[in-house]
């Protein structure tokens, strides 16, 4: 008699047995970004919520911290990053919101795509929204705090810092989406994991704006880059496992 066909499936997920070409992969990523941006252009809920939240936080800090110029210069970068982080977290909570209503995420999981394309698409669309908010916040800070924020190196660290934060946030959202308390779960998971990149970004930003030389902030800068690279790898390696039931 033949052996029993029963096989315990040790693989934690179904394998993607056929790898798409690079062109196909990026077409799918573009499709997911197009879909998210198209929906947001119609709803405008995320951008408006992020805008109102960011303006509120900035104004509250400005009027609450009625400080002299030097103290204000010292706390400005901290306040700026608090605004970035809170606004990004608000945005990240909405990363898979469009997929919740009719379980559209399952629609993507049922299609013959490399699941990491979902992650890359979702990450890029969220990052675009975060950048739009930063484009609004930075000039606002310049006006309210009178700090010159338009240094290329400072803008680079803002982009790299928010890149890492959004990257980890998108990954953790794919875990939080399966829980009943998604809005609470995301910050609980995200804040401890993202602490290194936030601290390093704040240190770098402070040093750049106070005119410190490269040697004084190179370690923090390198930490931001290494963090980003590590989490690109972690996300690509783990997303398949996290997104499947």
């Amino acid at each position: 008699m033949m052996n029993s066909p029963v096989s315990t499936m040790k693989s934690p997920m179904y394998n993607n047995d056929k790898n798409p070409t690079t062109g196909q992969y990026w077409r799918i990523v573009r499709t997911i970004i197009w879909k998210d941006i198209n929906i947001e252009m119609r709803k405008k809920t995320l951008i408006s919520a992020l805008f109102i939240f960011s303006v509120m936080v900035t104004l509250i800090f400005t009027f609450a911290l009625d400080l002299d110029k030097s103290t204000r210069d010292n706390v400005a970068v901290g306040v700026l990053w608090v605004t970035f982080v809170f606004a990004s977290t608000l945005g990240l909570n909405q990363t898979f919101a469009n997929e919740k209503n009719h379980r559209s995420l399952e629609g993507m999981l049922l299609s013959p795509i490399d699941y990491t394309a979902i992650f890359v698409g979702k990450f890029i669309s969220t990052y675009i929204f975060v950048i739009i908010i930063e484009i609004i916040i930075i000039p606002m800070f310049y006006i309210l705090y009178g700090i010159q924020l338009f240094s290329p190196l400072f803008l680079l660290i803002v982009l790299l810092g928010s890149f890492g934060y959004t990257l980890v946030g998108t990954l953790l959202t794919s875990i939080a989406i399966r829980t009943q308390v998604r809005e609470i779960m995301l910050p609980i998971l995200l804040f401890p994991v993202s602490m290194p990149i936030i601290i390093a970004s704040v240190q770098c930003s402070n040093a750049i704006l106070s005119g410190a030389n490269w040697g004084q902030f190179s370690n923090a800068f390198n930490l931001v880059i290494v963090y980003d690279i590590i989490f690109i790898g972690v996300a690509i390696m783990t997303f398949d496992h996290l997104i499947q039931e």
Partner: protein
Amino acid sequence: MGMINVKSVSKSFGMKEVLRDINLDIEPGEFTAIVGPNGSGKSTLLRIISTLLRPNSGQVTVAGLDLNTKAHTVRQILGVVSHHTLLYDNLTAYENLLFYAHLYSITDYATRINMVLDKVNLTDSKDTLVRTYSHGMQQRLSIARAILHNPRVILFDEPHTGLDQTNSIILDKILQSRSAAGNTVMLITHDIKHALALCDKIVVLHKGKVEYQERTTQISYDEFASKYHEITNV
């Protein structure tokens, strides 16, 4: 070997055993109904066959392809209509189908989209946002989404739920046309009468086990209703 072959599949969620040693063979082109009371494991079985869920043990093959190693290929030949429409409210019908057409790498997508919209009678409202659609229209669009890539196997999970009579008739016609076109169709339903009228084979799932299966030509409604009551006590 059948088009869908389920061998000794078991599935548990925590301590709760939902499927127990399921064996099922569905031939190519066969229209099979899976019936059973709530909680009998019908939807779990469909989710396993559709690659959304992984069994704890056992083996599932679709078109001879083992889901454990060829899930990606299986997804290319599989269409699923679930409880949920899997659509986006803030996209139009056409945009929803365009999105899925790109995911399935359909090259002649404009032709295919217009063809499936025509099949589900939604051509006139293809540029309307899905959030303004009635439930019946959304369900029909969901079917259009599922057949967009011309799958060989289509799985329907209680597609008649919440439909009025007109939409229910349209749905039946679509189901019959897919079956007539040679597709293998698996329909999960509560409605025994519907299942007997539409399908070639009927399978009763109860408490996670296949308790009975028969060709619909071999049994009358009354005989089956009595058998169903005997098995499920419903």
